[in-house]
């Protein structure tokens, strides 16, 4: 994805740039280049969505489902500060027959259309792998809820590991990008404190009587001037 001028150390990367250019040449004006880190986050998101969809099919209590999904997402998104996918309280219970055509295409369509072609391709592959894997897994663990949950947890762990590998493959030179610290601790107390600090700062601002002396900033731009 790096595309510094005339320094194509890597032909594959040049190839990706050309794909984006193809789009541009077709008249698409706004093309965003998606970097490795964003791609990694999308991969995580795809995995998280797969977990959600699969969990919906489980015949377990709502509570169990939530806790399972919660833990799965925690693991998958571990180190990822981005927003968690919504935990949808399963709206309609889906008949097993529908399992066959669950997620793949939908998943792909949901990912932003601004992805490069190769990135899209990778995401498609990844989500296919994930959902395929999970579905065959599900078929073998339907016997009892308990084992179902256990196995799913194991799969989640595996999936997490797989994602880490994906991360590393995507990272140039393979240096580790996995942040082991969990980012999912609740912010509520911190937020209260922040809001309080902000309020106090504004109160202080008000209390100091305004002395509108001249600032020291240069104003050499067009703005701030008359024309």
């Amino acid at each position, binding site marked *: *994805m*790096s*595309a*510094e*001028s*005339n320094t194509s150390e890597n032909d594959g990367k040049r190839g990706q*740039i050309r794909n*984006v*250019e193809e789009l*541009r*040449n077709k008249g698409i*004006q706004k*093309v*965003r*280049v*998606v*970097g*490795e*880190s*964003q791609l990694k*986050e999308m991969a995580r998101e795809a995995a998280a969505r797969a977990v959600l969809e699969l969990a919906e099919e489980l015949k377990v209590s709502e509570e169990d489902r939530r806790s399972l999904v919660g833990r799965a997402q925690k693991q998958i998104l571990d180190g990822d*500060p981005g*927003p968690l996918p919504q935990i949808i309280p399963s709206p309609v219970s889906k008949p097993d027959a529908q399992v066959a055509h669950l997620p793949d295409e939908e998943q792909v369509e949901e990912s*932003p259309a601004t992805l490069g072609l190769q990135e899209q391709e990778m995401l498609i592959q990844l989500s296919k792998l994930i959902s395929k894997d999970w579905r065959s897994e599900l078929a073998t663990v339907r016997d009892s809820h308990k084992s179902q949950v256990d196995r799913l947890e194991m799969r989640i762990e595996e999936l997490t590991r797989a994602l880490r590998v994906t991360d590393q493959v995507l990272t140039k030179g393979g*240096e580790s*990008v996995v*942040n082991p*610290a969990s*980012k999912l601790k609740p*912010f509520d107390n*911190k*937020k209260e*404190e*922040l*809001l309080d*600090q*902000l*309020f106090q*700062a*504004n*109160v202080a*601002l*008000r209390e*100091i009587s*305004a*002395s*509108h*002396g*001249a*600032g020291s*900033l*240069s*104003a050499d*731009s*067009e*703005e*701030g*001037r*008359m*024309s």
Partner: protein
Amino acid sequence: MKDNKLNQLSNESDVISPKLDGKSTAVKVGIDLGTSRSAITTSKGERMVMASVVGWPKDAISAKVFGHRVLVGDAVLENRMGLQTCFPLADGNLAFTQNAGDQKETLRKAGLHLFTALRQAAKAAEGQSVHAVIGAPAEATRENKQAIIDLAREAGIDGVMVVSEPFAVAYALDALEDAMVVDIGAGTIDLCRMAGSLPDAEDQVTIFHAGNHVDARICELLREQRADIQFSPNMIKKAKERFSSVVDTNKRALVTFPVNGRPTEVDITDQIQTAVGELVPHIVDGIQKLVSTFDPEFQHRIRSRVIVSGGGSQVYGLQEALEKGLEDLGGGRVMILDDPVFAGSQGALKLALEMPAEYWEQL
């Protein structure tokens, strides 16, 4: 416009209290007060962006066309020819605080008109109060923050809090710690590291080399290299926004300029790329400043979550260029926001909504 009425208004609502709990029904708004454009997002679900420019008829003839009205926003740019225009913000700050005499008063009035337009965009019902959190540049002076509060109140915004613009962006994303926000605007690039508390001076850096400088630089390069073409700064800005890139692409920046009065297509790809590319080392420097002065144990964390917002974030290939620049500092992860125009005002709105009601009452 409605100077004295405003104070009365807020007092009246206390006394008469026609809507009973008038306070909780105040419209909450988040405002990103920008040098080139200002965005507002409201608790009623409205969002709007307007050029931060004010204009009034130049002469008697224009007055016939426009009436004796003061125009605010994009309409001013569209009717530039007939209007006296004034940008009330410079380098991210209210310009009148840095001027004297007649010009000071004109700039102040222009600022007031801009706030009045923003107040109107809040679409508050008659008698309903407006509470605003307003984003200011990271390094805004105290005078400037006070000037923002004063003008906003004069324009009829009942409750005002000022917040650092990049902090508002971070708040929008819940990126309250282990993150860094880079807001690339027209007047300034504002950087802010998030370490779990309200950022103070040491947590922020303002770079006065942003979009406007890029525009000026392109003009300079063109004057040097293509003395034959005629252009206005606005033409250059538009061309930049359309073709800006820090990587090589097949797409050439072909722009039509008058050459000896005849429209001629000119390739200005190189000039744009050079000028835009000059932003990158500035940004990397700024990031380094904030990283190197941070607790060494946690430096890698803020480097690995650099969030880029503002109009300048739309430069093609910027993410890669910045990540490449960060490689020398041990690497980093850069994320470009999908909605850079409204990220700041959205964060400011979130702050306004989550701010306890009793705080608003005290302001």
